[in-house]
């Protein structure tokens, strides 16, 4: 099986947390833009 042959040394937890932080940073930025341009 392909998955068993590979040596995966990637720190996936760091990837997942990084992706979540990036998502919430974008949401925070969009909230700032929304408040800046509130009509």
């Amino acid at each position, binding site marked *: 099986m392909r998955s068993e042959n*590979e040596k*995966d040394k*990637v720190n996936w937890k760091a990837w997942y947390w990084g992706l*979540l932080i990036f998502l919430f940073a974008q*949401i925070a930025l*969009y909230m700032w833009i*929304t408040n800046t*341009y509130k*009509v």
Partner: protein
Amino acid sequence: MSWIDWTVLMSTLFIIVAYGSWKTRKQTSIDGYLKGNSENWVTIGLSIMATQASAITFLSTPGQAYESGMGFIQFYFGLPIAMILISVFFLPIYYKLNVFTAYQYLEERFDVRVRSFTSFLFLVSRGLAAGITIYAPSIILSTLLGWNLQLTCLVIGGLVIVYTVSGGSKAVSLTQKWQMGVIMAGMFLAFYFVLQSFPSSISFSEGVDIAGSLGKMEIINLSPDITNRYTLLSGLTGGVFLFLSYFGTDQSQVQRYLGGKTLKESRLGLMFNGLVKIPMQFFILFIGVMVFVSFQFNQPPIVFNPQKVEMTSLEEQNLKKIESSYDAVFDEKKMLLLNRSNDSDRIQELQFAQDSIRANYKSELHSIDPDFEAKDSDYIFLTFILNFLPHGLIGLLLAVIFSAAMSSTAGELNALAATTTIDYYKKFWAKEDNDERDLKISKLLTIGWGILAIVIALTAGLFENLIQLVNILGSLFYGTILGVFLLAFFFKSVNAKAALIAGIIGQLTVLGIHFLKLYGFFDLSYLMYNLIGSGVVILVGIIASIDLKNER
């Protein structure tokens, strides 16, 4: 369109199709044809994005931002969360079982009935959607450019069949990588020319301020209203379920990341999609907002859909009057903006008046000719391209639209053929392995699904309601499919019979809710169908398994 545009369009399409077919012409095994098995994370990531982004994404999204601002971006907030969940829970199991289709796993976990039930739901929804993926851009291109609708559908469908049949999954991924390259290059150039179309006295930051003062930069909506699709709440709840079902259980996506060289490459491909997708959608929406700013200074048509409407001279006079008031409002607003007036209330009033006059004009046209399509936001971006981009680039942007249509259709046909081959043909008719025969059957099935997609595209215009149905078809079936997969992954006590009962009840519930909504009993965002479908399946699955155990 000039000969330069035709040359750019034709050569771009020809090079991509020829390259994809030639590079993958030596497919001799069913494994390579249906899975690929050798892609790196960049190819997987781009291929996932290209499958999701259809032509209508690039035509409609800027138009949507033009009309309603940037709020649509919230729809995608669930996507990175779904990528993480798939990477943690779904992908390792698919790899461990070395499956071709996601539905094979359901037989391992439950039984063949559950596998066939979910793969059938996929074939119905994706089979119909493939036709509309071709039809939707074709109708816009043919209306704006005067092209023959049938011929446009045939060209898009025919080109896709050529390389999808020839090289299978590998050809689809390879061409999608180049198609995404063309798409992004085209969109960046379009953005540059949108900014160039501003008057020389108006800078980029002033353009953003103008968009902001007219309400186009309000991105986040904190409303708890579940009937609204574009709120933070909808994006982070319904959106997670939608993307979890689309990327985790829809074979057109599962096939893309199962083509990875290793589990690591597939996971990185998903992470790439999670990182890039929201900024990419933001950029496409932002192009639409900048087109809106450009049309504050360059007078836009009162309607973007150029469909001809037969009318009497009295009706024509009446419309002319509306057009003059539209022109007057536009001129006054333009002067205020050029003079950097501080009277933002007046500018907003004029924008509101302009929008109302436009809506009134469209409803007049619709009352004169009920066949007139009043929703014209899909035509806005293409109208801008045709009027403001230099020759050569118009051809490139049309290649963008064709590439997007072809890349998502190719992913769909490839997945439909894989599911029919693996979950039906090899499961019920030809159980013993025979690479040569299986490969031939897969190719024939790809041609078959391709022809069906073209037939649906050619006849779609006859069934207006069918198109509306197909637009929400994903949400109608995804909740149930996801619910069955969630039962399989996380509820070990649920057995096959309970899962099947739960799947059927979940599907009937979603269809029931949809029909009640159609008849006006209540209003609900389509995104919530995914949440409701999955919830009902899980609940019924748990109750039915307890009940069945007690019976025993």
